């Protein structure tokens, strides 16, 4: 187990290092100059040069890169040109916001998706299955920015019961979370449905029935646990995507999360924050995958290494 974990952590590090390198190069390859963005259209070349020195951008690229890596090891990304605070500080607020949003969305998706998926699988091709399945198809197809806009139009503009954006009040998380949850919810419904249908045809489910167990127990205990395995994998992947993919929802609802911070920081060529964002997002992604792997081992004793 430890060996396997070691391997996974090592390959995660490779991924993080790769991503960090890519972003380091890419953000510098993009036209535009952080100093220039700060100074605005009135800047003179001398001013720009002076500010670049101030920012430590005048050294060799390799030197900057080594410096970046060295500091990254201690989770220090330098200070933000735009915000005038350490990048990690800027990140931490945004990360909390994004994580809250992602978790809220995940909870909504799981809490609604699971029962609906089970409902579908218990009566495949019944009317409830057809309705839920087609709704879930729709949920997956709707572009989230459009859904967000429509939600704002309905709940904020017409009904005036929810704030249209921001994160000041607890209920403000509802619409962005629902918007974000919608595609995930659809995926979960379909995964649970197909997973459960598949599992329900398995021999051990027959065995459980032959043992005289009641259907709720057969489904709830014997089938569900086995079905969780593919669901966990996909949900993990999706959650990893949610962290970085919430940009649109964050934009529509002015949610002060990582995605927005990333977009704003790129626009400002705020190198340190961009790099920090990417590293944190990638770190989040690989950690989630690692957790999924461990969970996988927990859910399925067959893949437990060393047992």
């Amino acid at each position, binding site marked *: 187990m430890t060996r396997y974990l070691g391997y996974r952590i090592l390959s995660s590090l490779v991924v993080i290092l790769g991503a960090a390198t890519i972003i380091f190069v890419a953000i510098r390859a993009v036209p535009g100059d952080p100093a220039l963005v700060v100074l605005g259209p009135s800047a003179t070349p001398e001013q720009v040069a002076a500010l670049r020195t101030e920012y430590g951008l005048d050294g060799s690229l390799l030197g900057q890169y080594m410096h970046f890596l060295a500091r990254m090891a201690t989770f220090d990304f330098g200070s933000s040109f735009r915000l005038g605070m350490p990048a990690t500080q800027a990140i931490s607020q945004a990360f909390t916001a994004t994580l809250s949003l992602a978790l809220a969305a995940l909870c909504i998706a799981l809490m609604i998706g699971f029962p609906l998926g089970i409902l579908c699988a218990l009566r*495949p091709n019944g009317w409830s299955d057809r309705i839920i399945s087609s709704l879930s198809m729709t949920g997956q197809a709707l572009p989230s920015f459009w859904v967000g806009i429509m939600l704002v139009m309905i709940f904020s503009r017409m009904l005036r019961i929810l704030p249209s954006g921001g994160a000041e009040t607890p209920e403000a998380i509802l619409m962005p979370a629902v918007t974000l949850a919608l595609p995930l919810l659809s995926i979960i419904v379909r995964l649970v449905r197909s997973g459960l249908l598949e599992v329900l*045809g*398995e*021999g*051990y489910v*027959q*065995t*459980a*029935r*032959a*043992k*005289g*167990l*009641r*259907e709720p*127990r057969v489904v709830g205990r*014997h089938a569900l*646990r*086995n079905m969780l395995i593919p669901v966990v994998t996909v949900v993990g992947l999706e959650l990893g995507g949610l962290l970085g993919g919430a940009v649109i929802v964050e934009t529509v609802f002015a949610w002060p999360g990582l995605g927005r911070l990333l977009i704003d920081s790129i626009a400002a060529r705020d190198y340190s924050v961009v790099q920090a964002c990417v590293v944190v997002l990638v770190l989040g992604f690989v950690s989630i995958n690692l957790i999924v792997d461990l969970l996988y081992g927990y*859910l*399925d*004793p*067959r893949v437990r290494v060393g*047992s």
Partner: protein
Amino acid sequence: MITRPADTLLSVDSLAVRFGGNEDAFLAVEDVSFDLRAGETLSLLGESGSGKSVTAQAIMALLPRNAAITSGRIVFAGEDLVSLPRSRTRDLCGTRMGMVFQDPLTALNPVFTVGDQIAELFRVRQGLDRRAAWLAAAEVVDAVGIPDARRRLDAYPHQFSGGMRQRLVIAMAIALKPRLLIADEPTTALDVTVQAQIMELIRDLQRETGMSLLLITHDLGVVADVTDRVAVMYAGRIVETGPVRDVYDNPAHPYTRGLMSSIPSLEESPGLLAAIPGMPPNPKERPSGCPFHPRCAFARPVCSVERPALRAMGDRRKAACHFAEEVVRLDPVS
């Protein structure tokens, strides 16, 4: 009207099971009747698609969703299971009827320890507490010949060999001392030597507990080894039934006869086998009249028109062939 001996445990009467909906519906089992007395062993013998497994599933209320019993009765210990609600039949499963499945690998839930799965029976069905259930599980596992039972309860199914897994499945089936054990191809997935071990185990258990055994198999040898009576199925129907020796030595149905001559023996048997020509019919397109007639060497015009009924041949045998008397008089199968 069929008279039943007093000790009849299971009686299946004119059972028919339909698969699929509307257009592609077909009868997987048709007009199947047999009795099983307490302590007796009956084999349902047939090739794939003959309806033998479906019959077992119908008895255990384990038919897949797209299947339904369309007619007939299944009387178990005096109760008609067909008219009972599914939940009541389910109650009988485990306690009064146990089932052993073909593939021990898929029959066990891979994510729970075997102890969990066996103890569950005692906890849920008998209301034992966790500890007592665990002890009872250890006892059963020990009874099916798994060494070091107490310790191995903590293991997962994948940590057992195929033969051991089948023992575990059997343990689950007999844990609550059912009066009827249905074994659906219990040895097909196993090696020859393991197969022998498992059949011996089933026989021993049957001897000890006096339960009845309904054995479903395609293996003529297994049937001969363990059973008193055999019912040969073809295309969803029973074509012949009777004591194993009588049926094997002097088949009354051409299909049984064909089967007997299809298998090579351990002795020298030069030349070609007397194989049955053609293939078993598709359940959706069964031939008219006697379903076996296209493959039958004895077929005459009447066979393609009129379906032969399962009729008595002497007091213990029945056969569904217009010319059963002729067939039975042929030279014995060598």
